[in-house]
């Protein structure tokens, strides 16, 4: 199969759950996110020769997905100006989501971030990529990612008025949900 001992298909499949989560965070819509993931997988497969064996396949797939999103977004922006509804509203249709007020407020706060900051924060804080990998995915300098992440955290903290430990604690449900691994 592939140049490594593990079949490429398997490696790509392993990345799918995290790719979906990232895609949803980009476009805020589950169905559209799945279309993005599908398109990214097809493009990745068609361009496997541009993947450098030994490098991070997951980061490579994220890069492709992000490019698919950005090229589609440019097209769509002219057609539908926010006709899909807001990011937060569409997220509430996610099946199986942890439902609690804390999380809803967090999602809404996240929606208020500039897209570049939200993306950087998610890559580093949720997808589990290093700053270097996130910079590679976004095609920018490591310092840019760091500053976006810092600004994103600051803004989240101020939107959510996080002042002290007691003010922002995960409840039991959230803790349970956090038991999962950081990346697939």
């Amino acid at each position, binding site marked *: 199969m592939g140049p490594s001992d593990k079949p490429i298909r398997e490696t790509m499949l392993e990345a799918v759950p995290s790719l979906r989560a990232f895609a949803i965070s980009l476009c805020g819509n589950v169905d559209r996110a799945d279309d993005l993931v599908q398109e990214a*997988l097809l*493009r990745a497969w*068609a361009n496997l020769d541009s993947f450098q064996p030994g490098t991070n396949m997951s980061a490579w797939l994220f890069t492709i997905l992000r490019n698919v999103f950005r090229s589609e977004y440019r097209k769509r922006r002219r057609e539908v100006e926010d006709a899909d509804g807001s990011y937060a509203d569409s997220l509430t249709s996610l*099946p199986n989501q942890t439902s609690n007020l804390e999380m809803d407020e967090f999602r809404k706060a996240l929606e208020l971030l500039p897209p570049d900051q939200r993306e950087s924060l998610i890559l580093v804080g*949720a997808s589990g990529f290093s700053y270097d990998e996130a910079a590679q995915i976004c095609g920018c300098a490591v310092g840019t990612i760091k500053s976006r992440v810092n600004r994103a955290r600051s803004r989240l903290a101020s939107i959510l008025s996080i002042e002290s*430990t007691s003010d922002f604690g995960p409840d039991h449900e959230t803790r349970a949900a956090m038991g999962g691994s950081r990346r697939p």
Partner: protein
Amino acid sequence: MNRRKVHPIQPYMEDEVAPKKLSSDIKARIGQQLRAMYSDVVSQGVPERFADILRKLDEKNSGAPAAPQEGSSPNESSPDAGSKPSEQADGPV
């Protein structure tokens, strides 16, 4: 239980705020919420649709696994791939 209000502020102003120093505690809690949100999706696993697509691509390519099929439409390889036109013209990276 204390409930915080999400402040009705404008979405954002571009890069005007000098990030204030956040305690590692606050960073950690933001990280926890991020991962909790993310893991809601990750825990759904791989939808059958994607396993199907990759299996078909793999079968189609078997024999020459690393050779990409330039110029062929990816839509041909999957019956439900037709919902979005694909743009092979753009490079992936």
